[in-house]
């Protein structure tokens, strides 16, 4: 299978195109995520639909470059409108997003329905832009993706530090003389390019996944911007490659959705298992911490009881400890744990006492908590 990646034209081309798309959308999507503009990618890709339809209606041409230009223009206008509406009216950002997304997309669908009555229109394959047609990528398409994509990445690298300030503290950037408004426009334009080159591969509806998912996954694994963007691009590339391979190994598996499924899986794994931020590890840490607190609490209770008697190994009833702990759960599981740790000892069916080690540890806990 892996050998076929190099020898088979179709697999090679689709995998290359999809991976390149993954790199570009991952890198730029990472920045979008940090600027809280992830859903803007969704709005832009949906806004592209009427752009494609109008490009066809106006020029009558079905050349991919023409349609993609229409998509880029419409996406850009959509983004500009959202910003403008947010700034000038009382409509909030997410409302403006939602409105623009549905209005543009709806308009696009209406145009498509109208176009379907025009003879020869179906040959333009406008419907394919909804979900993409990755399996039909040819060398020419990949060259376009490579050209536009590498241009976008070069600009990202050139203006890296300015984009960093733009994303972190825009107002401050303006005061040190950086042209924040123009940088904002530039970054948005690169964003639109990333989205638009993906439309033929995964389509309008699924493109937002390629923008949002790699960045969201990458954020889980690192706290450094450079590494996050590189990781995001890598996740995107892996998804593209993986989607092509999966689609190549079974019948009737469309490539675009396969890519999106893989990147979604990466996100789920990242959310759950990333070392610091992963939910699973956080749960485990919380549980361990909680257990430690319970151990210390019961230990101190035993110590308090013991200090009322002459010898520290005087046994105490479990019932008493239950009452002292004040929590609805019984103290028995914690007592068993203390026994395991060698800090307490079971005297008979329901009585416990501290071991010398237990006494020592209790004293240390008190020292730590209250100062000696």
């Amino acid at each position, binding site marked *: 299978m892996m050998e076929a990646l190099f020898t088979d034209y179709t697999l090679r081309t689709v995998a290359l195109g999809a991976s390149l798309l993954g790199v570009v959308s991952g890198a730029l999507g990472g920045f979008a995520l940090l600027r809280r503009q992830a859903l803007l990618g969704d709005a832009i890709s949906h806004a592209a639909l009427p752009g494609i339809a109008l490009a066809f209606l106006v020029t009558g041409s079905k050349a991919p470059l023409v349609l993609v230009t229409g998509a880029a223009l419409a996406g850009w206008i959509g983004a500009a409108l959202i910003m403008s509406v947010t700034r000038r009216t009382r409509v909030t950002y997410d409302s403006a997003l939602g409105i623009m997304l549905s209005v543009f997309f709806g308009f696009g669908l209406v145009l498509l329905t109208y176009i379907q009555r025009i003879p020869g229109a179906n040959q333009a394959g406008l419907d394919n832009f909804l979900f993409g047609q990755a399996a039909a990528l040819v060398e020419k398409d990949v060259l376009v993706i490579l050209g536009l994509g590498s241009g976008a990445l070069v600009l990202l690298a050139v203006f890296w530090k300015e984009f960093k300030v733009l994303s972190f503290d825009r107002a401050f950037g*303006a005061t040190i003389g950086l042209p924040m408004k123009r940088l904002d426009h530039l970054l948005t334009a690169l964003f639109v390019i990333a989205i638009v080159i993906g439309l033929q591969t995964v389509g309008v509806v699924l493109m937002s996944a390629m923008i949002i998912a790699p960045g969201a996954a990458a954020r889980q694994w690192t706290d450094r911007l450079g590494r996050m963007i590189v990781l995001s691009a890598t996740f995107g590339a892996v998804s593209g490659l993986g989607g092509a391979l999966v689609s190549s190994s079974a019948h009737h598996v469309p490539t675009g959705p396969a890519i999106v499924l893989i990147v979604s899986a990466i996100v789920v794994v990242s959310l759950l298992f990333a070392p610091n931020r992963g939910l699973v590890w956080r749960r485990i840490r919380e549980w361990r911490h909680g257990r430690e607190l319970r151990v210390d609490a019961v230990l101190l209770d035993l110590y308090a009881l013991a200090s009322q008697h002459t010898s520290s190994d005087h046994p105490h009833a479990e019932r008493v400890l239950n009452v002292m702990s004040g929590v609805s759960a019984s103290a028995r599981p914690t007592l068993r744990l203390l026994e395991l740790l060698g800090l307490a000892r079971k005297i008979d069916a329901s009585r416990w006492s501290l071991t010398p080690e237990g006494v020592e540890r209790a004293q240390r806990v008190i020292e730590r908590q209250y100062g000696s």
Partner: protein
Amino acid sequence: MATEKIDAAIDVRDLTVAYGEKPVLWDIDLEVPSGVLMAVVGPNGAGKTTFLKSILGLVRTAAGSVLINGRPYADMRQRVAYVPQRGSVDWDFPTNVLDVVMMGLYGQVGWVRRPGRAERDRALMALDQVGMESFAERQISQLSGGQQQRVFLARALVQDADIYFMDEPFQGVDATTERAIIDLLRALRERGKTVVVVHHDLQTVPEYFDHVMLLNVRRIASGPVGDVFTEEHLRTTYGGRVSFVRAVAAAT
């Protein structure tokens, strides 16, 4: 013998900002001499942050002009440093303390070039001035409020500016940090710098600052603290609340 006129550090004329019909700042005139520590006080919604932002060109003005050392602000950006409110950024951004401070130098590094050894050293020195040098590699998400404030200050210090604008730098910081900040501001004044601070705590104005501007959409009064920070002016600025105002004035 004619005395030559020294340009004020900051010269604001007729500054007016309005959101639609509502005036936020109205016809503000202000002259700030160099080498002072000036507080800007006023009730909530008085326009204090907007005042700072409109001087810095971050907010569109309906009218007015700003001169820095006698020249328009746009020409004098390198001489001015800004410390925004801590809450204005997302501290979960993936970057560390040193990186944030070096951002202060991006305007001087120029396009395409990456900040190098020299910039790094300057940033570390600025961090040392605020007592945060050992935090250089720390993620900013792990900082306390006071530490965040100091990082912002270091970012401003690294620019080696003449005039500093700060927006509520004492808000929500611990006592140690507050002392450290005021020491820093005084040191700046010693070196002839001008510092304008939007300040939220009236009680500490006489202790920390030598000049003050009372602002409530209009400029109520401005000048040396002794002359201007009176009960009458406070009452005009804050409206009523007599006991509160009297207590503050008594502390003057």
